[in-house]
């Protein structure tokens, strides 16, 4: 971070907290207390959390008070983190934003949770999300929407909206989200924080409540690029419990951030800058590209003619997988069961209709249709072939350039309620993010300016397992752009209330 040190420990990035712990200037208890005070101040408006355990967080912090400053302390010792509520936490309620999982307490931790605890992180609680991560605004949560800390009348993005809003508002130092079609990057952009979707297979999905298994990835949401790199390093790597997790060495991402991009070939995707782009988004993205050029990157215009077909292909493949993955919610092993069941099939059907929200039902229907006899070839198989076409196109483009850049979403955060009645309109928010999920490639959303009072994100995509290059490009941009003097409106208002002039 290039700006002045923020007043509250709640606004300090994890790398800075670590330095403060080492110097004895702060303790984990002080940080957790500051974060809990912030939560108390802003949560009535933001509603980022579905579950918060303040006492447990304080206890864990106290355990780190002496050790967190040690030279050999684990990398996230005493750092408060929030977890998207589709990550299983042993004995701690996990709903994935769905009524059908109300009351569910997983019997095990997701691998990422185990790794975070081993790295010394303090788990604050579980964050709100669209039901089963299906949505782009967090309005599909069965437990009510989260609001954008920059403008509480607008959505925080989704589906990891609670995690993004929590980091933006200083309600957590770091957070984990999941990204199936943009669910880390889009809320990252809408909330003005860094959000990274890793390469498919970079991070274990064990304990992530499955939405679309060939697309889902867990990734970090953070205040800045250094923190995202730090968090990625801690969660990445092969896990025997997830057969799709890759046996690929995990680089020391934070130390690879040099900020040097001289000679970097910056592929500017023409199809991502055409038609329907909000002028504020176009301006901010254009300025970000020029800033990277001024830092020495070489602009190369790239065309990905099939990229626009990613959206329909995604909205066939993802629901198809969801329709299968969500078959397990039937009132038998966990979660809601209807009170009115006379026979087994009737129990399944009634339980599911009572427990699922509208968007989840819509996607189960869409996916079941696309997989059903007579439609499989025309829809599912064709979408999987388009997916392969897109994957090849992206991989080929990345042979000639080092990264691909463009906007994260066509607009800034939109008003609450604006798109909930129109599924297709909502899906359009994902038009630039879904191609990377289909292709399995990594992408980061990094703040690159504002449209009015709303943050805008630049998407930087890279080669498979090329997170280091993606993050370093984002880091170069972060350094090239002036540190934002602005603070989320909700946070500024809370601080005015707590320290009257």
């Amino acid at each position, binding site marked *: 971070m290039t700006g002045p040190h923020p007043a509250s420990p709640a606004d300090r990035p994890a790398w800075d907290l670590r330095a403060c712990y080492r110097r004895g200037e702060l303790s984990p208890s002080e940080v957790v207390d500051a974060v809990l005070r912030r939560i108390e101040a802003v949560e009535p408006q933001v509603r980022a959390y579905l579950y918060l355990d303040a006492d447990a967080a304080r206890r864990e912090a106290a355990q780190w008070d002496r050790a967190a400053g040690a030279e050999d302390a684990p990398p996230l010792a005493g750092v408060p983190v929030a977890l998207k509520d589709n990550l299983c936490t042993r004995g701690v309620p996990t709903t994935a934003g769905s009524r059908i999982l109300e009351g569910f307490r997983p019997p095990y931790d997701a691998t990422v949770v185990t790794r975070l605890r081993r790295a010394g992180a303090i788990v604050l609680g579980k964050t709100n999300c669209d039901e089963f991560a299906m949505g782009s605004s967090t309005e599909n949560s069965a437990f009510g929407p989260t609001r954008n800390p920059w403008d509480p009348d607008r959505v925080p993005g989704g589906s990891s909206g609670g995690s993004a809003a929590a980091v933006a508002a200083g309600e957590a130092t770091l957070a984990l989200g999941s990204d199936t079609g943009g669910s880390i990057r889009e809320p990252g952009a809408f909330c003005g924080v860094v959000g990274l979707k890793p390469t498919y297979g970079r991070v274990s999905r064990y304990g992530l409540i499955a939405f679309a298994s060939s697309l889902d990835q867990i990734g970090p949401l953070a205040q800045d690029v250094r923190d995202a790199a730090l968090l990625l390093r801690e969660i990445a790597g092969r896990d025997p419990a997830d057969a799709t997790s890759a046996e690929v060495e995990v680089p020391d991402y934070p130390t690879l951030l040099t900020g040097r991009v001289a000679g970097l070939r910056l592929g500017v995707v023409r199809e991502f800058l055409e038609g329907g782009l909000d002028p504020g988004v176009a301006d901010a993205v254009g300025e970000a590209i020029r800033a990277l050029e001024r830092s020495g990157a070489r602009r190369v215009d790239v065309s990905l003619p099939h990229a626009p077909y990613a959206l329909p292909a995604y909205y066939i493949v993802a629901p198809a997988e969801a329709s299968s993955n969500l078959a397990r919610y039937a009132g038998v092993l966990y979660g809601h069961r209807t009170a009115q069941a006379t*026979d087994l099939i009737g129990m399944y059907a009634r339980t599911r209709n009572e427990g699922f929200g509208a968007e989840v039902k819509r996607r189960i229907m869409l996916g079941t249709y696309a997989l059903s006899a007579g439609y499989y070839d025309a829809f599912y198989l064709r979408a999987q072939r388009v997916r392969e076409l897109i994957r090849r196109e992206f991989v080929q483009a990345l042979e000639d350039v080092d990264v691909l850049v463009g906007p994260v979403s066509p607009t800034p955060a939109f008003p609450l309620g604006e798109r909930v009645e129109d599924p297709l309109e909502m899906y359009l928010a994902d038009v630039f993010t879904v191609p990377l999920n289909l292709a399995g490639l990594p992408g980061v959303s990094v703040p690159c300016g504002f449209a009015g009072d709303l943050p805008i994100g630049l998407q930087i995509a890279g080669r498979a397992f090329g997170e280091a290059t993606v993050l370093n490009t984002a880091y170069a941009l972060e350094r090239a752009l002036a540190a934002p003097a602005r603070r989320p409106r909700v946070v500024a208002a809370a601080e005015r209330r707590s320290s009257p002039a």
Partner: protein
Amino acid sequence: MSEDRPKAPSMIDAAIVARVARLSRLELTPDERRLFQVQLGSILESFQQLAALELGDVPPAAPGGPAAGVMRDDLPVACLSREDALANAPETADGYVVVPPVIEDDGSRAP
């Protein structure tokens, strides 16, 4: 199966919605059925653009990455206890999950 052209949205009629709901194990209300008929119709209509794409000999995307198919030794390891595995079930008895009758008792068998 033949390579069908995607069906026109008019093909999303009430019967298809009912069939897909049955396959999905979703007991939809009449309002939901009407809503999804309209919405699925317009979603699938907008996806027609995929039908026009020339795909040549491009195969479907292959699942799996560098680790797919990794083998391990077939050794017993610790797993969930029965108690933990059943702790979230809505209804259990004697270490089993209880569900409504699968086969209806038509009275033909004496108790």
